[in-house]
């Protein structure tokens, strides 16, 4: 798997500890690694070149902050520059300039437009809005039906003129309905198309003229490679995109395409899609994506989910733990209970930095079912309170007893202890991030490589 950028840089900077200024040689050595890391993450190679040049300009001759190593300083500049590219605007939609707000979804085939249309409708409903949706995809078989099914599931109104197969008429009809029936938002789903398909790009322009959208959301697949600049660039040139939705971020792609897209389109990402279900849509957060592209894992998502699932009591307990030296097997058990409530385990584990790449985790992944968690819990339950608080006392004979008590094997007990020790180590590096506000700062420090 991919090494994180800071790991890569550690090697480069081993010999440069005492430097107080970033010299040209230092910066160039770092930038070589940064270039590789970004290419591995699928950032377009021209965007990489431009980006690396900018970082170089910024970095050379900069004073190294006393608290940082030269490597950390460069990573920090990279991170800040990347954040700057994504803009400071918070994700989501800006307040509508008029009513009804008309959102036009566009993008390549299979990028996730229809799914995102449904997700957005749900998201807007949660915000107290009344959206209407319409499909103009008369090309892909059963695409109209797909949106209707999703809308019905969500109790969202869908405009379905039976037998009407003209995309423009369908869109215009929906707008009239929205105006007459008091919907405050209309979302227009469109057929996927290639940016070089003139005929279909013209159709898109005709739909745009018919509904005069307030928002034009370009839906891009997070797994996209180098081609992202061409497709996004051409859609933007012809249609003037106002926002980007990055889908399928629930996988393990590094998502460098996001940087390419934002680089050519020049507008921030509005939302990210993180699963197939209608609830899997989140307003974009730049820090998360930056740490992902740089190989730092999606720590913030993990924290948020953990927080949502953790009951108040265990959250308070976690908040008390300052340095995690006193993180015990009892806490571990609490965490497991939390994890069980957090949803698909592999999804959660994939977000922990470093975990996605752990080979042994991959091998174990198939076994990571809820039953496995029950077994772990049984093992911990078979320990004495003293053992749970201090795992160091767990010698061979105690482990044998615990295995017998929990109906497992000694190897299972050993594995649980190993997992516990790993988790403890990880928590230590993550700092007290689970304790709310200060957490983000801590995380940022970690991203800086400390």
């Amino acid at each position, binding site marked *: 798997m991919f090494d994180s950028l800071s790991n890569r840089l550690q090697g480069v900077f081993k010999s440069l500890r005492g430097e107080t200024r970033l010299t040209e040689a230092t910066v160039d050595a770092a930038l070589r690694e940064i270039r590789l890391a970004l290419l*591995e993450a699928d950032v377009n190679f021209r965007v990489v070149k431009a980006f690396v040049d900018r970082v170089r300009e910024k970095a050379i001759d900069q004073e190294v902050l006393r608290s940082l190593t030269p490597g950390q300083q460069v990573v920090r500049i990279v991170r800040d520059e990347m954040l700057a590219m994504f803009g400071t605007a918070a994700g989501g939609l800006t307040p509508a300039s008029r009513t009804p707000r008309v959102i036009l979804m566009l993008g390549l*085939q299979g990028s996730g437009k229809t799914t995102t249309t449904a997700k957005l409708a749900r998201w807007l409903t949660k915000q107290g809005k009344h959206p209407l949706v319409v499909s103009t995809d008369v090309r892909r078989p059963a695409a109209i039906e*797909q949106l209707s099914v999703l809308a019905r599931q969500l109790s969202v109104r869908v405009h379905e003129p039976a037998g009407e197969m003209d995309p423009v008429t369908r869109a215009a009809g929906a707008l009239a309905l929205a105006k007459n029936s008091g919907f405050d938002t209309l979302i227009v789903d469109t057929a996927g198309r*290639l940016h070089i398909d003139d005929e279909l790009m013209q159709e898109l322009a005709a739909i745009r003229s018919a509904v005069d959208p307030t928002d034009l959301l370009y839906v891009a697949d997070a797994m996209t490679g180098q081609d992202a600049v061409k497709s996004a660039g051409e859609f933007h040139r012809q249609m003037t995109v106002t926002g980007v939705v990055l889908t399928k971020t629930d*996988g393990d792609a590094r998502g460098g395409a996001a940087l390419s897209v934002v680089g050519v389109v020049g507008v921030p990402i509005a939302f990210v899609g993180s699963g*197939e279900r209608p609830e899997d849509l989140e307003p974009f957060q730049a820090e998360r994506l930056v740490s992902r592209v740089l190989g730092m894992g999606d720590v913030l998502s993990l924290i948020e989910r953990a927080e949502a699932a953790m009951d108040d009591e265990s959250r308070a307990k976690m908040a008390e733990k300052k340095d995690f030296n006193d993180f015990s097997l009892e806490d571990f058990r609490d965490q497991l209970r939390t994890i069980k409530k957090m949803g698909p385990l592999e*999804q959660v584990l994939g977000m922990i930095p470093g975990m996605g790449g752990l080979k042994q985790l991959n091998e174990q992944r198939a076994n990571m079912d809820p039953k496995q968690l029950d077994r772990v819990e049984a093992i911990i339950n078979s320990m004495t309170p003293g053992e749970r608080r201090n795992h160091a006392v767990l010698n061979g004979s105690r482990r044998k007893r615990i295995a017998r008590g929990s109906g497992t094997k000694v190897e299972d007990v050993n594995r649980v202890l190993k997992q516990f020790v790993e988790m403890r180590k990880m928590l230590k590096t993550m700092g007290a991030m689970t304790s709310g506000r200060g957490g983000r700062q801590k995380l940022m420090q970690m991203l800086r490589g400390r």
Partner: protein
Amino acid sequence: MSSFFSRVRAGLAKTAAQIRDRLTDRGDRAAESTPDAGGARTATSLSEIEDALVGADVGLPATERILLAVKTAGGTGALRDRVGDEIRRVFAGAPPPLDNGTRPRVVLIVGVNGTGKTTSVGKLANLFKQQGHSVLICAADTFRAAAVEQLAVWAERADVDVIRAQHGADPASVVHDAAVAAKARQRDILLIDTAGRLHTRANLMAELDKIRRVVSREIPGAPHEVLLVLDATVGQNGLVQAREFMSVGGVNGLILTKLDGTAKGGVAVAIAHELKLPIRFIGVGEAIDDLVPFDADDYVKALFTDQW
């Protein structure tokens, strides 16, 4: 049948001209490749080829391996041709699985979300039928909204019958029914469409494993082919997908779709290199006959053709 290359060229001729001057890369590229002295010229064209390969999503590790192989082998002729030869060698090292004559032959189609699985099933049904085979389709995507309806339309277009179940049904049980039906109806080929799944979702990958087990119980040796559908726009994650679907899903070949766009799907070169997975078919459009058997020569040519 017209080659992939000529089809793509024909489709692009109209747009290429208008777009060509739009991107600044042309100018940059021309400036870069201005030859100075003898040695510098080679270096420049090497870096140019590196850019072309990386820009086509071949990925750095595979690009470096290819360039190294070319440099060590030496030889005469234009660098680009030697690189092309090396890529052809990579593909030659990944031969397709043989048809051992078992009937029904089971072809399982898998991949992450939205890559073109269902469309490819429709196109394959059509292709196999044209080749004189009798085909049955199984709709094992019981998850995505209207996925079965989508496949049913394709089945009708290809004039092939389809075994389907209720939305939300266990995909393995539909596959079981389809395997039984394929035997009873004495079909040559059973094509199975599956739901899109990310390789990182262990439970969904386990579901795939179950499908394989169920079909092999009915038809020994099945599935004979497990084709991973890759979208040509995919980046380096394509390699991760291939690795995972190969180890869990038994993938033994690729379908590379959406090559009618500007993306080259170069990660398939890295996949052939590292995993020895052959590209079996390519998708070049949304019509039923827009699927053609893979041809390495055409592909290598297209790889080096800057369509923009």
